[in-house]
């Protein structure tokens, strides 16, 4: 039962943070809890526990395949958080730190949930706890972003609840005893009532797809990512979306077991490609580099969906991509946050010449963009290549073509914007101040760590992780 500590440690730390008196010392709780959490997660990765048959939550192969990534992401972000909160003493951090820790606990719960209902509760709670994180900056724009996030995310999560009910009813209608544990649902297999099953899939995919940010349910993403602090963006893009993706995978497992695999694959492929297309079109013209990261996230969610639609090899690659994308995005969000602070603006008509104003962050940002647009030897290259390989292996030539085309246009858009911001002459207003943004090690080392992790994942993917992904893929697609 060590896995319960994955949930308990952050929640206890959150309680401690809420009660902690010292404004300057409180942020240190973040890396402390994050470090413990990460160590435990890695320990569990190496020594996976045996899952109790009827457990409500547990460190099963799928959790094992993704949870350590979320934990690592949080840990590195929390290191950044200490330095970040130190350079922003004007904002009270009690709620912020508490909410971050609660979020980690809820993510751990949701990723480990073995029950549809519990999964939903954790997902909903994550939505709520994100709100104070989003309006940490307290600006009008931040409130607007939080409002939209809450309304759209709330609607999405409501749909997923309705979907959960439908799935429950499908089970009930076919003679089940109302047990919403995934193992029980999978065991019911083809006996699940087909119309309810389809309704459930539609609603759950739309609901968790909203959380994940698949087009056209992605509309909250640019606002939220654009206004949230960099590290919150990183956690949303790497943590919350992963949770939603895992939820979709778990539901897909049930629906596949009921014999509607062709439908799940068709819908996931269509929504994945559509998301990539929408993201590519938005990326081509967006002038705001933080919103750009949001569209890039939409694109990568599309990639995950496409991967999930391609059977065992595709799911393996998608899990790989969860790791590479999450960690690479971490570097991007953190460095983008630095650049945003250094420049005081985030659109290309106001920001230029950041290679001079914040050289380290600008370089990390450029390298991160190349990494996330699948330049080798960073991890995303390898995971995307695996997905393309899977499309070809499953003879989805059209999907492969569309996939590659979208990657291309996304690349055009992103590099155009990034180089406009990094190079060029600083704008007149920025030139006048002529002071360099203090790039403390605390805000430079974490993104570098992310890049290093991304590099390491690609060049020397640990066999442990490969094995974990294989196990997860085998769990989801039992027949190869």
């Amino acid at each position: 039962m060590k896995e319960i500590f994955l949930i308990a440690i952050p929640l206890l730390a959150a309680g401690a943070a809420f009660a902690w008196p010292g404004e300057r010392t409180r942020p240190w709780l973040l890396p402390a809890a994050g470090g413990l959490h990460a160590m435990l997660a890695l320990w569990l990765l190496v020594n996976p526990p045996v899952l109790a048959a009827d457990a409500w939550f547990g460190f099963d192969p799928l959790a094992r395949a993704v949870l350590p990534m979320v934990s690592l992401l949080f840990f590195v972000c929390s290191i950044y958080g200490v330095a970040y909160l130190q350079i922003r003493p004007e904002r009270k951090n009690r709620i912020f730190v508490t909410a971050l820790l609660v979020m980690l606990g809820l993510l751990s719960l949701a990723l480990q949930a073995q029950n549809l209902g519990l999964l939903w509760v954790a997902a909903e709670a994550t939505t709520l706890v994100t709100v104070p994180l989003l309006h940490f900056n307290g600006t009008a724009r931040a409130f607007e972003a939080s409002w939209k996030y809450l309304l759209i995310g709330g609607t999405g999560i409501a749909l997923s609840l309705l979907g959960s009910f439908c799935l429950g009813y499908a089970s009930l209608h076919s003679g089940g005893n109302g047990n919403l544990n995934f193992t029980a649902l999978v065991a019911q297999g083809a006996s699940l009532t087909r119309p309810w099953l389809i309704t459930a899939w539609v609603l759950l995919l739309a609901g968790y797809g909203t959380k994940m940010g698949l087009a056209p349910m992605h509309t909250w993403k640019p606002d939220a990512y654009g206004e949230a602090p960099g590290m919150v963006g990183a956690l949303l893009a790497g943590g919350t979306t992963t949770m939603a993706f895992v939820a979709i995978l778990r539901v897909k497992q049930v629906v596949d077991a009921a014999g509607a695999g062709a439908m799940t694959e068709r819908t996931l492929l269509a929504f994945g490609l559509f998301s990539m297309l929408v993201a590519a079109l938005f990326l081509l013209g967006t002038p705001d580099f933080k919103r750009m990261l949001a569209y890039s996230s939409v694109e990568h969610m599309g990639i995950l969906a496409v991967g999930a639609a391609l059977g065992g090899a595709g799911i393996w690659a998608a899990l790989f991509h969860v790791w590479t994308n999450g960690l690479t995005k971490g570097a991007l969000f953190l460095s983008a946050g630095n650049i945003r602070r250094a420049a005081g603006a985030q659109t290309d008509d106001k920001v230029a010449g950041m290679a001079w104003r914040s050289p380290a962050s600008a370089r990390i940002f450029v390298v991160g963009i190349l990494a996330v647009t699948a330049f080798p030897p960073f991890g995303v290259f390898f995971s995307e290549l695996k997905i393309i390989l899977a499309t070809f292996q499953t003879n989805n030539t059209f999907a492969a073509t569309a996939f590659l085309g979208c990657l291309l246009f996304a690349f055009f858009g992103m590099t155009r914007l990034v180089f406009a911001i990094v190079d060029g002459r600083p704008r007149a207003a920025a030139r006048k101040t002529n002071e360099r943004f203090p790039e403390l090690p605390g805000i430079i080392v974490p993104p570098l760590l992310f890049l290093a992790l991304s590099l390491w994942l690609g060049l020397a993917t640990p066999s442990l992780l490969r094995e974990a992904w294989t196990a997860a893929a085998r769990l989801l697609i039992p027949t190869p």
Partner: protein
Amino acid sequence: MNGTMNLLIGLAMGLSLVALASSRLPSVIRAAAFQGMILGTLPLLLEETFHGLVVAVAIGTILVKGFIIPNLLRRALRAANIDREVEPLLGFVPSLLLGAAATIGAAALASELPLRPEHARSLLVPGAFATVVCGFILLIARTKAISQVCGYLILENGIYLFGLLLINTTPLLVEAGILLDLTVAVFVIGIIVDRIQREFDTLDTRKLNSLRE
């Protein structure tokens, strides 16, 4: 038993249409609150024997959906001193027609889906779908933040209605989840409404579009 339930569900469906047709915010809030109260009583009718937990759920639902949330909304309305007129993006008559169409559509859809014998004659499924769709219409067709919150409430009511299908079999965790989340959600929404008021001097969400491409 089924007859009473269907009557109440029909009433709830009617209330969503009332919310769609209301031109003043307090009446929208009232419709949503009344709908919540009706739904709260339903679990009691479903069960032959009064299970303790079911009673607790019913009382909780009535309290939260019927009193606490509407009160919060009214407080926000008063505190913000908002113009009580509902400003529709889509007119009342079209909204109403859409709502009616949605109700018919929901009934048609429900008849397509196979039901257990004990639910076959109940209005639960069409009622749930119709309420969800009406909630969506309110969310999409109204500009004021409070009317959108009401839309969201009605949406949640529909889902709750659907959840009643499972109340016998699934552990009540799911229901508890709704109550908890709904409360917190609206609480947070309330805060935000408050903040929106301060920042933008209006509760008109049309003004909330500085984040755009």
